[in-house]
């Protein structure tokens, strides 16, 4: 009986561990901090000047890359 309970507890514990591995829950405070970090980094990148070659492509000039066979 005791063994059976022990086995069941071990099984439940294993299931909980597996569930945590599949869908780990992150502390809300850390989630907020990560969100702030990511958005600030991304905002920084969004304000980088756009290289001229992209402007040229969008204006209809073809890039001079080797793969351009035209």
């Amino acid at each position, binding site marked *: 009986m005791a063994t059976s309970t022990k086995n069941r507890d071990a099984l439940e514990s294993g299931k909980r561990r597996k569930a945590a591995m599949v*869908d780990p829950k992150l502390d809300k405070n850390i989630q907020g*901090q*990560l969100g702030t970090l990511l958005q600030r980094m991304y905002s920084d990148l969004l304000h980088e000047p756009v290289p001229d070659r992209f402007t040229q492509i*969008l204006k209809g000039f073809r890039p001079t890359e080797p793969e351009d066979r035209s």
Partner: protein
Amino acid sequence: VSADAEIRQSMFKVVPHLRAFAISLTGNVDRADDLVQETLVRALSNVEKFQPGTSLQAWTFTILRNLFHTEHRKRRREVEDPEGLLAGRLASLPEQGARLDFDDLRIALTKLPYQQREALLLVGAEGLSYEEAAQVCGTHLGTIKSRVNRARTRLAEILGLDANDDFGPDRYVRAIMQDMA
């Protein structure tokens, strides 16, 4: 104004987003710019496939993401080393105190499996909905949610963030705020 000209005009607004996504995804500005260039060329040469009324951003992000995956498969072996070397710098970060800058975050991102990385960037940085991110990645909603969740957890581990540490998360934000001042 022709539809083609309109789309080109709209693409000017999308380019900074494509570039931010590509840099965050690859951790390498040169690779990112090559990806963006190829994305623009592909998009313009397939412009008739774009469905008016749908999101141009989602369409171009899908092209870029697919190009990245193709390239990643080709370069997997050579990509692993530089990423490993860069990420190695992070090992001593928590002991160095408040010195997390955006480069460190970008390096930490390269440590994530790329499918988790793209999901987190699309949702957590670019601000796409889970549905839009699932569409861009060609997968299911539940898969995207799971990838974002795992990415956040892994990133917190890499960066050494700890909710119980009074000097944990806040110090990074303070460092960034000081940097921005």
